[in-house]
C-alpha cells in the first residue's frame, strides 16, 4: 500500500512493554488498523480513526490515551477550561455541579465553561444550512471526529455529505477567546483547555480535519480530571460542608443533551436519524453509499454506544450518565418555562461566530486502495481473489492479521506471507515443502518468544 505523505496524529498509543500480544484489539478494530508482530500489537497509522474500540478491548490496559501535561495550565495567566456537560454526569447525584465547578477552579483554572453553549447557535445554523446547502442528502453531522475520519478512510464517496460546520467545541473556544480579548486580556496569556471523553477529540485537536488550526491549547482526559476533582471535593468535605446557594444556569436544555444520542437529530427539522456505535454507523453508511434509501435529510452519527456518554475515558457508567443529563435537561427546561434561565453570553458573539462557522471541505483518504495505479491494483485484486480461494476463511488471526482477506491484502502489498497462515503451514509440512521448525520460526516472528517458549 502506498502511504500518504501526510502524517496522522493518533491519541491512542500502544505501550509495548505492557502489551501481551493477545490480539483482542486486532479483532475488534473496525478499520483493520492493527496487526500482531513479534508478540506486540502494531498500529497502522493511516487506517486508524481513533474510535477507541481497541482501548475497550485491551485486557491489560496496554493501550493508552495521550494527554497534555497538566502543568501547561499554569503557563497561561488566564486559563479557561471547556468542559462537556458530560463531566457533571460522571459524578453521583450528591456531588453538585457547583462543587465540581469550584473544584476545577481550585485545581488551577481561572474559568470553567460548558462546551455546549454553542448548541443553540448550531441548532439555528444547521437549520439554515439544511435549507440552503446543495450538498447531496442525507447530510452528515461533523460532530464526531471518529465518524469524520471513518468516512474519509472507508467511505470516501460520502465526504461530500458532511456538514461543513465546526463542532460545538471549536465554536465555544472561539467565543471565549474573543470574549476575553474584548475584556482586555493579552491574547498570548489566554490558555484554552478542553476535557475530553475520547481519543478522537484529541486527534481532532492535534490534527484537525477541515480546519487549518486548532483553537485549543491543551487537552485533559476525563478520567484524569475526574480523579483530580473528586479528591479535591473529598478533602473539602472533611473540613467544611456548607451547601452553596445555586444560581440558575444559562446552558440551554438542548445543549445539555447535545452530546447524547439524538442530541442533534432531535433539534433538526426534517427526516433525521441518530445512529450510535461504530459498527452500526458502518452498517448504515454502507446503505447510504449504495443509495438504498431516499428522503433522509440529516444523519447524526456517533462512534460510541450512547454517544459521548459511552466515551472511553468516562469513569461512570454510560446509562447512569445519560440519566443524570436527562434530569439536568429537565431542570433547565423548567427554568426556561419559568423565564428564569439567564441568557448565555455566547448570544453576544452570534454574528462573529456565524461568520467563522464554516469548515473547509473534508478530503477523502481511502485506505481501501490496493495500489495507486489502477492496472496494478487490478492485478493485485486478482491475486487477492486467488489467495482467498487458498486461505481457509476461518479469520482466526493466527497469522497476525485480523482476517484472511486482510492477510491476502497484506500479501499482495508485500507486508505478509502466505506461510504466515497456520493452515498453509500444515499443508506445506504435509507436502514436505516446509519443515516444522520453519513453521515454528514463523510463529515466533509473529507471536514473539514468550508465547511459544512459555513455561513448559
Amino acid at each position, binding site marked *: 500500500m502506498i502511504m500518504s505523505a501526510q502524517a496522522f496524529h493518533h491519541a491512542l498509543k500502544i505501550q509495548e512493554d505492557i502489551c501481551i500480544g493477545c490480539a483482542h484489539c486486532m479483532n475488534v478494530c473496525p478499520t483493520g488498523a492493527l496487526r500482531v508482530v513479534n508478540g506486540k500489537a502494531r498500529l497502522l497509522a493511516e487506517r486508524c480513526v481513533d474510535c477507541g474500540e481497541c482501548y475497550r478491548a485491551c485486557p491489560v490496559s496496554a493501550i493508552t490515551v495521550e494527554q497534555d501535561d497538566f502543568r501547561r495550565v499554569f503557563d497561561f495567566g488566564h486559563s479557561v477550561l471547556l468542559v462537556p456537560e458530560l463531566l457533571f454526569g460522571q459524578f453521583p447525584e450528591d456531588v453538585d455541579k457547583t462543587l465540581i465547578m469550584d473544584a476545577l477552579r481550585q485545581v488551577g483554572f481561572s474559568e470553567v465553561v460548558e462546551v455546549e453553549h454553542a448548541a443553540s447557535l448550531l441548532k439555528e445554523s444547521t437549520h439554515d444550512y439544511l435549507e440552503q446547502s446543495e450538498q447531496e442528502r442525507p447530510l452528515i453531522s461533523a460532530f464526531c471526529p471518529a465518524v469524520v475520519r471513518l468516512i474519509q478512510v472507508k467511505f470516501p464517496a460520502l465526504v461530500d455529505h458532511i456538514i461543513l460546520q465546526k463542532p460545538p467545541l471549536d465554536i465555544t473556544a472561539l467565543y471565549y477567546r474573543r470574549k476575553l480579548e474584548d475584556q482586555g486580556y493579552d491574547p498570548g496569556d489566554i490558555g484554552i483547555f478542553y476535557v475530553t471523553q475520547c481519543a478522537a477529540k484529541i486527534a481532532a485537536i492535534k490534527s484537525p480535519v477541515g480546519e487549518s488550526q486548532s483553537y485549543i491549547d491543551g487537552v485533559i482526559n476525563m478520567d484524569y480530571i475526574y480523579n483530580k476533582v473528586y479528591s479535591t471535593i473529598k478533602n473539602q468535605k472533611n473540613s467544611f460542608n456548607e451547601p452553596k446557594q445555586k444560581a440558575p444556569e444559562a446552558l440551554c436544555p438542548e445543549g445539555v443533551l447535545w452530546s447524547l444520542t439524538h442530541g442533534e437529530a432531535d433539534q433538526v427539522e426534517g427526516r433525521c436519524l441518530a445512529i450510535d456505535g461504530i459498527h452500526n454507523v458502518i452498517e448504515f453508511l454502507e446503505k447510504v453509499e449504495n443509495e438504498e434509501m431516499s428522503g433522509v435529510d440529516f444523519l447524526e452519527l456517533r462512534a460510541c454506544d450512547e454517544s459521548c456518554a459511552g466515551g472511553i475515558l468516562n469513569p461512570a457508567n454510560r446509562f447512569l450518565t445519560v440519566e443524570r443529563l436527562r434530569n439536568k435537561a429537565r431542570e433547565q427546561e423548567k427554568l426556561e418555562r419559568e423565564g428564569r434561565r439567564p441568557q448565555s453570553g455566547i448570544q453576544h458573539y452570534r454574528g462573529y461566530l456565524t461568520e467563522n462557522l464554516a469548515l473547509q471541505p473534508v478530503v477523502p483518504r*481511502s485506505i481501501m486502495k490496493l495500489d495507486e495505479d*489502477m492496472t496494478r491494483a*487490478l492485478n*493485485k485484486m486478482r491475486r*487477492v481473489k486467488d489467495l482467498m480461494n487458498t486461505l481457509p476463511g476461518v479469520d482466526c488471526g493466527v497469522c497476525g492479521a485480523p482476517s484472511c482477506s486482510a492477510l491476502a491484502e497484506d500479501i499482495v502489498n508485500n507486508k505478509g506471507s502466505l506461510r504466515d497462515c497456520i493452515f498453509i503451514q500444515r499443508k506445506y509440512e504435509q507436502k514436505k515443502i516446509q519443515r516444522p521448525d520453519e513453521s515454528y520460526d514463523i510463529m515466533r516472528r509473529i507471536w514473539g518468544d514468550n508465547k511459544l517458549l512459555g513455561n513448559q
Partner: protein
Amino acid sequence: MEYDYEIQGGDFSSAGFASSHLKKILKQIGIEPKLIKRIVIALYEAEVNIVAHAYEGRIHVEIEPGQIRLEIQDRGPGIEDIEQAMEDGYSTASEEVREMGFGAGMGLSNIKNNSDDLEITSTVNEGTELTIIKKFK
C-alpha cells in the same frame, strides 16, 4: 477479473449483497468514489429488479483496466414494452412490493442514467437480460 452472484426472486432482504460486495472491490482497485457510486447504484437497481419481478437471476461482473461490464440475466415474466419500462415512474410492481419501499418505477431509467451503455433484451414469459457498461474514465 470476474465475479458471479446468484439472486433469488422475492428475497428482498438480500438485495444489495452483490452491489455491496462489488463496491468493496472497486474501492480496492482505486476507482474514483463518484464513479463507484454510479456503478453500485446501477447494480443495486438491477438486483432489486430481479428480486421484485423475477424468479431467479444471476449477475456476471467483468472488470478490465478501462471499464466494468455487468451482465444481469433473469428468469421471469420479461418486459413487454422496454421503451415504456424505461420511462421514469413506470412500474408494474405489485402493491406488496411498493409497500416495502421498492417499485417506484425508477429502476431502469436509473440504471440507464448511471451507465455509459445499457442493452436490454427481453422475452415475455422467459426473462430479461441487461448488459451495463461503465467506463472508468
